[in-house]
């Protein structure tokens, strides 16, 4: 299981996200990938052949960590989880390539 490092680390205020209907506790300043990983979620994309995908490069190069972010109007935009900051109240969905 993943671990948040606590010793010597002071984080931003607590925030909460929704991922596929489940509540994910996080901190302001977390990237979406960090928030999901810290909550024990490792896969948030399913490729066209049904294979799970998650974090690979961690620096915005590989686009393997795309995740769906739902906007107020219900539309879903795909962003890189590793470079996009998590925001309080954000609604996230597993990105399924076959049904995009």
């Amino acid at each position: 299981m993943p671990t948040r490092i606590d010793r010597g680390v002071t984080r931003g205020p607590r925030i909460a996200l929704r991922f596929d209907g489940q509540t994910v506790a996080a901190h302001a300043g977390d990237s979406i990938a960090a928030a999901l990983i810290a909550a024990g979620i490792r896969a948030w994309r399913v490729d066209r052949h049904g294979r799970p995908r998650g974090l690979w490069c961690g620096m915005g190069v590989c686009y393997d960590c795309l995740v769906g972010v739902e906007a107020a109007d219900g539309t879903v935009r795909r962003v890189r989880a590793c470079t996009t900051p998590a925001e309080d109240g954000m609604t996230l969905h597993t990105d399924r390539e076959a049904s995009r």
Partner: protein
Amino acid sequence: MSYDVAIIGGGLAGTAAAYYLTGHGLTPAVLEAGELNAEASGANAGSLHFQLEHRLIAHGDALAQQVAAIIPLAKRAMALWRGLETELRAPLDVVMDGGLMLAETPEDMARLEAKQAVEARWGLDTQMLDQAQVRARLPGVADTVLGAAHCADEGHANPRLTTLAYARRAAERGARFFPHARVTATERRAGAWSLTLADGRRIRARVLVNAAGAWARDVGQLANVHIPIVPVALQMTVTEPVAPRLGHLIQHAGKALSMKQVEAGNILVGGGWPARLGDPGRRPRAFPRTIARNLATACGVWPELGRLALLRTWTGTVGVSTDQLPLIGRLSALPDYYVVGAGSGFTLGPAFAATLADQIATGRSDPQATVYSPDRFAHLNMFMGL
């Protein structure tokens, strides 16, 4: 090495010509300076568009009448595309579910109506749609779209696969392919063409076909003839793949635009937007203003495109003839020298190639083909001492 026909250029026109020539019992060799399908044949956006294009109808009725002579070729291409996956035993992602040419102004509508009259005269079936009919066919279309011309046979195919499928089948039927074989000389020797390759190899053939696309002019100069085909650099864009939502090929009556959703789910947007011709040997460069205007034009008629991500752009160099019509046929200034190419070379490519192969095999040309004859530029070669 001796062949019936030497074809310079491994794009769609040259490769498909090789295929159809083998059908006439001839043995062709295809000489390609780089890789097969590397230039416009593989880099175009794959539209199968049969309505007279924006660029052709935008400059007045007289030119439109002239270019309408392309329609018989378009009809042959339609028939070939419908059967091509079966004929070549390969998936080519051919979809012919119809195309819409959109109008946003009364002028656009008038232009489409005039266009439709020309097309009807030449036997191309298109219908005018009103705003409600367009909305039914293109959900999410902008309110600014007043109507459209619809052609049921339009659609798209995969340019990345088509030339390669022709090459595989042509090779099975005896055609020879020489990639990475730059031709440095084309000479007449002992009643045949003798081609010298950059590595020194020689190829003999009774007939020579210049199918070098944007480089046809350079290849022509090896035989001391002018081929008035000029290179034009174009840029295209592609979105991320999404679920099917765009069933038609989309064009515009008054603006440079083409848009379609391909098999893999990506939406390709282009329509004749310029890139910058680079240094020789280098791909043309895209530039930000053109990419932005191309996408703004597309979003203008179909706003939901804006919600998607632009994945990539790419560029290609296409050969365009000086009168925008194709060149297909024999050049009477030289013995057994044929030219094929220029103008809507993907959509019409199979028809170009089949028409050329018929001419080479029979020595006769269809009376309608005189419109495309390269001899219409014979005056240019008066100055070449021919």
